[in-house]
């Protein structure tokens, strides 16, 4: 099974539209589908803007993991299979099968442990392709997926260069070189490795504030060949660490657990400053885990609040210019507007195993 996460840079960037496009193409390809969400999807109107939302129309046979209380919220007839081990604001997450096609609401596991468990069950039940709809700008749960489709657009910012810069920063995060898992990897501490291979652990896992960075810096008294940080990090904290520990870190390696651990904090563009400063000091940056970014979708439409009516309405930026500028920045990855005709072949970029070839009957 392949699990694809649909992440966004903000609300209304087109995650669900991208997911629906893949859903439609996968249905035509005869794949057995699994659907879930880390937020709340499939509602008729957006909870904040009140504008219409794309609806999930699930074909018969699709397996879904959603919250118990929304099982009857759509027109699809769902057969409850089992209750899973995570819970949401709408009750426990359940596994259900679409018996009669129709619309449905998805409120799935809201964190990565729950999502991992849900995807595992979908795989055990023979799903070929699991689609995980995202929520707002949340990325962390997607770390358990096999690939990511990133949606961005005017809902993130109406300045096209800013959209492109931000997408590029995320792209860089997902393209950080990956080191194989270390045999003696420490989850609970920072790990310092010296030139002779000797290691030392220091208390702490994450670097989220400048104060924490300076505290860690004080503990690194001699040059190190590698500093491994297993937790989450804020880019400005890492910048402070680099500046504070110039003499000890220069020429060495900074190893983070996951690209998504970096993407979770602050504006991704700040990480570009970190990468540039590290490069200037000969510090190489690695991650232990990453997730393949399969393609980027761009949405020129954004919800715009009008003070005259007191309501949201649609605004738009130049669609052609948006795709052109973002494509220029992300030169080796597909950048598409899924509303374009002919419809882009998103499924083709996901490298889905052909049905019957990868599953024993």
């Amino acid at each position, binding site marked *: 099974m392949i699990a694809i996460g649909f992440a966004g840079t*903000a609300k209304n960037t087109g995650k669900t539209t991208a997911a629906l496009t893949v859903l439609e193409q996968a249905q035509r390809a005869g794949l057995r589908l699994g659907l879930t969400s880390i937020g*709340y999807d499939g509602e008729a109107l957006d909870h904040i803007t009140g504008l219409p939302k794309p609806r999930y129309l699930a074909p018969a046979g699709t397996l879904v993991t959603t919250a118990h209380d929304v099982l009857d919220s759509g027109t699809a007839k769902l057969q409850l299979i089992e209750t899973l081990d995570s819970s949401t604001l709408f009750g426990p997450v359940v596994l259900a099968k679409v018996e009669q096609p129709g619309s449905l609401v998805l409120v799935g596991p809201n*964190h*990565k442990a729950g999502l991992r468990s849900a995807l595992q069950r979908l795989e055990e039940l023979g799903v070929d392709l699991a689609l995980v709809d995202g929520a707002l700008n949340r990325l*962390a749960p997607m770390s358990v997926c096999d690939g990511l489709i990133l949606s961005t657009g005017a809902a993130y910012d109406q300045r096209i260069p800013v959209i492109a810069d931000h997408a590029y920063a995320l792209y860089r995060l997902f393209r950080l070189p990956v080191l194989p898992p270390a045999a003696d990897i420490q989850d609970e501490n920072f790990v310092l490795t010296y030139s002779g291979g000797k290691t030392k652990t220091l208390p702490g*896992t994450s670097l989220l504030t400048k104060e924490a960075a300076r505290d860690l810096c004080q503990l690194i008294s001699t040059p190190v060949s590698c500093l491994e940080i297993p937790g989450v990090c804020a880019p400005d904290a890492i910048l402070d660490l680099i500046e504070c520990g110039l003499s000890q870190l220069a020429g060495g390696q900074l190893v983070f657990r996951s690209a998504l651990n970096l993407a979770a904090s602050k504006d991704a563009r700040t990480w570009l400053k970190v990468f540039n400063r590290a490069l200037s000091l000969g510090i190489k940056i690695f991650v232990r885990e990453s997730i393949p970014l399969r393609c980027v979708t761009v949405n020129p439409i954004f919800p715009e609040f009008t003070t005259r009516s007191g309501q949201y309405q649609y605004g738009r930026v130049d669609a052609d210019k948006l795709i052109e500028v973002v494509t220029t920045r992300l030169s080796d990855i597909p950048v598409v507007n899924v509303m374009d005709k002919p419809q882009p072949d998103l499924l083709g970029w996901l490298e889905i195993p052909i049905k019957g070839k990868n599953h024993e009957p």
Partner: protein
Amino acid sequence: MKTVILAPLDPVHDNAVKLLQRKLTEAGYRALALPPGVTAEEVIERALAETPSAILVSRTLGYQVAETLSGLVDLADAAGLRPHTRLGVGGMAVTREIGAELGFDGVFSGDLDLAAVVAFIENRPIERNTAAASAARPKPDLTAGYSYHFKDPMIEALLDEITSQLLSWVKGKSSPGIRRAQIREAMLAEPTDSAEKSRLQEHYLQQCDTEIRAFYQAGNMPEGVRWLDRSEMERLPSLTAAVAAANSVRHIGDRPLIFTQYGTGCPLMDAVHIKVAEAWGADGLLHFDPSWGAQREGLLDGLLSHEHDGTILTLDNLRLIKTALAPHLLWNVRGHRGLNTPETQVLAQAAGADLLKINIPYGATGGGTDPVRLAVDGVYSLRLAARFGLPFDIPGNDELSGVPPHKTFAGLLVMTMLGLKLGARPIPKPLMCYSPYMMVEGCMEDNFIDMNAAKLRVWSEIIDAPIWPGEPVGFMTHTPDRVQSAMTTAAHVALAKDLGASAVTMASSDEAYSKGPISAQARVDTLRAAREMLRFMGSAGFSTTPAAERLQAQLHEGIRHQLEIIAKRGDFVAAIYEGLLGSPEDGLHPGRTGRGTVQEQAA
């Protein structure tokens, strides 16, 4: 001691955090409040150091705030906190749907509900929101704690004289209504398919009108009546699914209990209205039947709907409606005025009602039933109420016809004494209203407080009994303006509370002007408005002008004088006919339905 981190995630405002810190500390938690302006990164760093059971964020939704909140959730997940730290969010405009989209485990909106917050931290269901908790919630007894001791011995003596005469007068009298009630009780004791039940049904039909007989024998439906169909019935479970209980309408104390009335004509629509009332904090519901049902000899049977006000009174309809009632809700079935008064008490008890409603003087005038007939049926109904152990309330709505309150109250007191003598538990319902009499006499031109205060306080001078202003409070102060209507209802509820009322009945904000079934949102209007008003008032109260004492004294004297006239007449039923409890000049006429149907029983 469990640790909870409280974060405003707001550059300025942290009042909610401070309040929650105090409450959670009092509840035994180590509540760490972070200052305004703290970032998501700082919150997560603190959480990594403290390993809290929960992080509670307070933030009003606004521009870019959703992304800020989801950023915190994402960071918590990436930091590995979520397996042991629950994430909750509270603030204006945060809904359950938005909370789910943001990835939170809990959402808190509106006033601080500490029980809900504690349940969230402990990762357990909020017990009071479950059906089991509703079942465990004791049903309040409106009559508990009242001695029914008369404080005015003169009035007590007059009531004793009047009711003794009435009880003596009804001896040996019966009616088709009483016979149907007796047959109905016998039928209820029989298995569904017994031959005896069929025989009893035949006997029952002999006591019914032609129209009712035609329903049973030929399947002829009265005009506008139809069966509920299967598809409607299949929708019932989803319509009556358990709702999360709202906060009580009351801010402090356990009285007055809040009642609303339903009777849309359709039992399924009633079920929805009941759930709405339950969700918005009502303590009880009153079943209103159609007025034409009170004017027929005999009741229909089965699951029936019709396109008129009031829901058809059948055992099946009542039982269906009962399924929508949460176990903690009190349920009153109205049966105080028509030809089916005794049988209504039987069906109500069989369906699980908690309260009955019987008023002979009102039913025999404003209700349109012949005084002789209703006196006989009413006394029998009171005996049933006593046997069933169910309290009965006595609505004083004859005031709405223009009757001065002292005459209406004289009737309520007669019913009170009658009920007590027969072993039942009466609940008088003086009306808080702006009645025609008040308008004509100008008694309420300055304010609505003095007269209503006089009308409720006078009862405490006469008898130690529960007082339940109805029906509904604020009658004739409402207009088609929903805001005005909700406001005046709420003001009357607050006044009733201040005056020590045991319960109040509230209208929806469109009840008088809906031009059809009332709307659910209008039902919410008044419940919500009353809740806000009671919050506003708290333990504070109203003050009356000196006029209130004068009105109260006049009322007390008027009641006493009226009872003297009724006692002197020596015939309660004749007193009704002759207008001593409300005359044609007042706007009341003796009822005519069922005249000549009372028979002397063979010795």
